[in-house]
């Protein structure tokens, strides 16, 4: 390929607050009857006014801090004006030039090849801004009375929506994939959203352009970036982020190769046909007429307030991983699996505690053993930790044999295989493997193989 993809992402995440962003209706609209979770505010009725949800603002700041952003000391809401049937006020309350958080970054790791344990590279993705806004209602296309219509449900209208915008730092679809997973992981660790793409609580809008391959280096200057950008909308799952971008790379490559200049535009992704379709060209670029929201007083945050929010951040995946390696002597491979989901990490640590207490102490179940069991046995995390450690312990007891038993097994094998022993003495070293096999058989597979081999050799030397 002659081109390097230049990709930036906008990720929208519905925050898991109890109530909506600007009114006190329930924020959980999933599976509710249409238009039953609404009030004058989220319906945009004449005269209704917004009052911001403190928790949603704090959660956005929390996320901003978790991705190392600078939190704005002064921030405000703005109106983004446009018309769409799912936007009840004719404007969305969003943030324009004073987002809550700016200039963050996130470290992504990605495998150089598909092989397990192959080299991992890490890379910094810069996060330009994080802001808070409100979600729109939901449109569904239906046929009613033979007519094609759009049905609107305003239950989702006004749900707090956090928008995370990156710099155009991605150079491959894999990087995008890793970033999205990392963002999702951090959000879940912070407990601020389920960030579930299938449920629509996390939505991804990439913009992509192609640049000549000679700009492979990661820090491309702004003026070197392509003059166009194609934004892709309507992507509803992880799988389709990849597919849409892959499709777009092929499409843009073809155009560039045939000498066609690509225009700035917005394209929609169609899952059924796996193509992107132009929605809006450069000439119809939206003029959102942003201006400060007069219904909501501005926000100011002192360093003290920001620090208080920072205190709420529990251990994030990266820190947890480092600590697991340091404290428990695990490998990076182990920790990657254990920390992937917070509940797994929590389960693991509870098990470590249980293994070090009371009756289990003697069994000497190391964190490594626990990690291996969790990773390799696809453990059902709904069982309790004691039960889980009990399972490990009893299987270890079964597997353990005393040195005495090993000696008696070895002696028995050497006694009945006189010829083999003679051969060994005559210098046929490989015979020991035959004898080893017989000892293992005698012990019915129990015992540490290495120890058995050592003891066998010791006995053979004595003869």
């Amino acid at each position, binding site marked *: 390929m002659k081109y390097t993809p230049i990709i930036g992402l906008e990720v929208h995440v519905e925050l898991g607050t109890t109530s909506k962003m600007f009114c006190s209706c329930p924020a959980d609209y999933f599976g509710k009857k249409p238009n039953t979770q609404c009030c004058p505010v989220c319906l945009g009725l004449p005269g209704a006014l917004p009052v911001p949800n403190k928790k949603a603002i704090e959660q956005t700041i929390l996320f901003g801090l978790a991705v190392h952003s600078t939190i704005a000391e002064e921030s405000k809401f703005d109106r983004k004006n446009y018309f769409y049937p799912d936007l009840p006020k004719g404007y969305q309350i969003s943030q324009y030039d004073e987002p809550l958080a700016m200039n963050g970054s996130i470290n992504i790791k990605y495998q150089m090849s598909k092989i397990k344990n192959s080299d991992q590279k890490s890379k910094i993705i810069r996060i330009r801004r994080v802001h808070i806004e409100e979600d729109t209602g939901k449109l569904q296309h239906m046929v009613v009375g033979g007519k094609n219509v759009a049905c609107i449900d305003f239950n989702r209208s006004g749900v707090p929506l956090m928008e995370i915008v990156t710099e155009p730092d991605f150079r491959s679809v894999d990087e995008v994939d890793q970033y999205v997973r990392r963002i999702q992981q951090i959000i879940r660790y912070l407990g601020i959203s389920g960030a579930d793409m299938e449920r629509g609580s996390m939505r991804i809008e990439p913009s992509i352009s192609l640049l000549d391959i000679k700009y492979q280096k990661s820090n491309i200057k702004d003026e070197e970036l392509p003059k166009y950008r194609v934004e892709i909308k309507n992507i509803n799952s992880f799988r389709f982020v990849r597919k849409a971008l892959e499709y777009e790379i092929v499409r843009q490559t073809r155009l560039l190769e045939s000498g066609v200049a690509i225009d700035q535009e917005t394209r929609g992704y169609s899952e059924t046909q796996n193509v992107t379709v132009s929605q809006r060209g450069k000439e119809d670029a939206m003029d959102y007429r942003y201006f400060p929201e007069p219904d*909501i007083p501005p926000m100011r945050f002192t360093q003290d307030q920001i620090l208080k929010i920072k205190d709420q951040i529990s251990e994030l995946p990266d820190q947890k991983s480092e600590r697991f390696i340091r404290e428990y002597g695990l490998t990076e491979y182990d920790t990657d699996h254990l920390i992937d989901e917070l509940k797994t990490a929590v389960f693991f640590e509870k098990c470590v505690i249980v293994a070090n207490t009371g009756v289990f102490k003697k069994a000497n179940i190391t964190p490594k053993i626990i990690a291996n069991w969790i990773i390799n046995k696809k453990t059902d995390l709904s069982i309790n930790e004691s039960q889980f450690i009990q399972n490990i312990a009893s299987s270890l007891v079964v597997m353990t044999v005393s040195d005495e038993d090993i000696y008696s097994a070895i002696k028995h094998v050497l006694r009945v295989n006189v010829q083999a022993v003679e051969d060994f003495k005559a210098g046929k070293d490989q015979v020991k493997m035959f004898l080893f096999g017989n000892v293992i058989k005698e012990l019915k597979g129990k015992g540490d193989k290495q120890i058995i081999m050592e003891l066998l050799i010791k006995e053979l030397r004595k003869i």
Partner: protein
Amino acid sequence: MARNISVTLTKEDVKKIASLAKLPLDEKDIPVYISQLSSILSFVSKLSDVESAGVVPTSQVTGLLNVYRDDVIDTKRMLSQEEVLANAHETHDGFIIVPQILAKE
């Protein structure tokens, strides 16, 4: 001091503004809009003469900061589906409906 700033909108300007504002526009009304809007804009353009460099813009005069609500549900204000739909132009099965052309715009 240019005290007589004159703004003259074109037909295209008026059409563009109307379309941004989603207002239907009758071709025959355009000349009236051109003249009325241009005279109002010329009038307000005098603002550019005011020495305001370095002045902090005022977007509201409440003097208030950080006015929030707690994250709790208040069912008192919630409306029933029937109330939500009562004023709607067209409804179906609990939804408010619009022609698809409108939705695609």
